[in-house]
């Protein structure tokens, strides 16, 4: 088994765990954490393809990851703020109770 494949398998496992958490858990904060897990799985893929790719000297993989982390931080801040606002309004953080957006 090549190191690239091992890395990809690890990232896939991480993504599946995140996806499962996001789909199954009711707590909004846990869902947010699960989304972060999926994001990091993608970052791992970036790094793996960079490290074992044809041009490891170019540093484009870490660069993408740094951007992704910055965007993820901003997204987490917005998500947390939304969760707090929703909690203030509905006094709950259970996702199934928040269905005002239904069409």
């Amino acid at each position, binding site marked *: 088994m090549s190191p690239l494949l091992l890395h990809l398998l690890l990232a896939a496992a991480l993504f599946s765990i995140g996806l499962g958490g*996001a*789909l199954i858990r009711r707590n909004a904060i846990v*869902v947010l954490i699960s989304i972060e897990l999926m994001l990091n799985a993608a970052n791992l893929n970036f790094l793996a393809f960079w490290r074992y790719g044809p041009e490891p000297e170019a540093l484009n993989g870490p660069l993408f990851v740094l951007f992704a982390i910055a965007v993820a931080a901003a997204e987490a801040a917005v998500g947390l703020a939304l969760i707090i606002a929703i909690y203030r309004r509905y006094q709950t953080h259970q996702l199934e109770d928040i*269905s005002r957006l*239904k*069409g």
Partner: protein
Amino acid sequence: MEFFARHLWLIPVLPLLAAGLGALLGQSRQRTAIGLSIAAMVGACLLSAGAFLLTLTGPASVGPYRYHHNLTWFESGTAAVQIGWLLDPLSACMLLMITFVGTLIFLFSTGYMAHDARIGRFFCFLSLFAAAMLGVVLSNSLLLLFVCWELVGLASYLLIGFWYDRPAAAAAARKAFLTTRIGDLGFLVGMLWLSAETGTLLFYDNGNGCLEASALTQLVARLTTTGMGVSTAISLLLFCGAAGKSGQVPLHVWLPDAMEGPTPVSALIHAATMVAAGVFLMARVFPLATLGGTPEHPAVTLQVMTWIGALTALFGALTAVAQTDIKRILAYSTVSQLGFMMMGLGAGGPPVGMLHLLTHAFFKALLFLGAGSVIHGCDGEQDIRKMGGLRARMPLTFATYAVGMMALSGVPLVFSGFWSKDAILHALEEWPISKVPFLLGLVTALITAFYMTRQMAYVFFGSDRSAHAHPAHESPRIMTLPLILLAAVTVGLSAVATPFRPWLEEFLAGASGHSPEIPSGTWMVLGLSTLASLAGITLGWRFYGGGKAAGVGVPEPLELRFPRLYRILANRFYFDELYASTAVRGTIAAAWMAAGFDHALGGLYRDVAALLSSAGSWVARMTDQWVINTSFDDGCDGLRTSGRLASRAHDGKPQHYLRALAVGVVLLVLGLAWIARP
């Protein structure tokens, strides 16, 4: 002195401003409106006096004084319409007369109308009238004259119908307006024709005006298709307008009815000024009317004027004999005197006609104001049969009225009416065409003296014949003062109007270049007219004097003697009935025919239109129901259903959305794997 000529326009503008401001002032400021009107009139009077003095200073060697100022009203293409004002002896005399008589009548009205709630409006109308009349006199353009002429008609309509809540007054106002319009149609056509022939409507324009030599020589050469001179045709058309305004015979019917207005209005409009406008117009365009005539054979227009005038004079005098309304008698006497003026104008030229116009304006205003004073004293009573014996109770009114009556009747020596009437008779006596107008004039003079004596006997002599006359009282000072002033002028004018010292006539003659001849045969005419007037008065006194004037319901002396004649006269020769059965009925019949035609044609149009529109509406309804409604409704249903289905997916649960996303990702991955299979 030039100031007065250059600011001539101020004379009509002052009363116009007073009228405008008076109209803006409210009900509570009526006294201010009255003050404004009188102040404006006094101002106009002073300016007119200045202008009159200015015309006196003109050097006689270079002809009469004439000042004109023209300005362009508007331009259309190459044609410019010009208007302007003109000062010559003719307009100066008229100005002074109108503003002086007007001022006195304004003063009189403050007393006469004191109890009327709408006195402010009354003065506003009076000022408008004065402004328009002054405009007529001053204008140097036939167009401007026509505009002011119509304004005069409007003001007269408003004033006759001032008491519009009386049906008779409203009807009289309408009648006056419509009757004068008939004449004005001729005026308008004549004016347009003149404009087409000479290219200008200015009277005097440094040689280019339509009354100056170049235009006149041009006109005299042209003939209409019927062989009549163009100048004759135009001046006859203008005469139509003059006849309408001045109450000449076929169009006189409005003037007696116009007495429904307040008495000062009758004095101002229907005695002194407006009705004289027609005579003034003919005097103004006299150079045009006299074209193509010789001393032996005067122009056709002048002959027509003389004959119509003679008929009018006789008719008016005869009708006045059998009237019982104090103002109606004076109205018919005005008709008669206007006939005299037209005769004088036709036979003797502007100086003779205008002389009588001026003297008549003063003594007829005096008579009307005197009648107003009588009516005021008798509590609104106008029927002379219900008066009587007022001599003792209204001494001032009686004295001044007597002066007016004697001036109108032509009592010799100190009354101006005698001299001006004499000038007319003298001109008629020398008229080369026929002596009939002269005889008619003499007869009219006799009848005039007769009916005035009758009126005096009824109103002032004998005993009171009704409750109205009994408590009669003298009018207040503000009303008697104008009477005294007018009486003084009536007497005073004779000093400058006798054939021995014809200053006024010569002054006026300067205006048109017709100098009166040295009076030959003056004594004969003087004697005859004196005889006529004295005979009339004697006859009148024989019939009515000494308490023989009868009350209501009792046949009066003349009626007993000549019952059939009296009936004809009392019914005013059945003129109104004649018009009612011909002109009025004809108009109504024509209107009915037009209405019927309209109805028939309209019915056809209506049926076709109804058919077309109902067919159209059926098509529209079908389209609406089947094409528009159905397709639209179906489309809406489809949209609604699809929306309902689609909205199921959006249940508002984030994790359901996420699930859909995950399923999508899994399917994507599977698809990619399927495509990338080795």
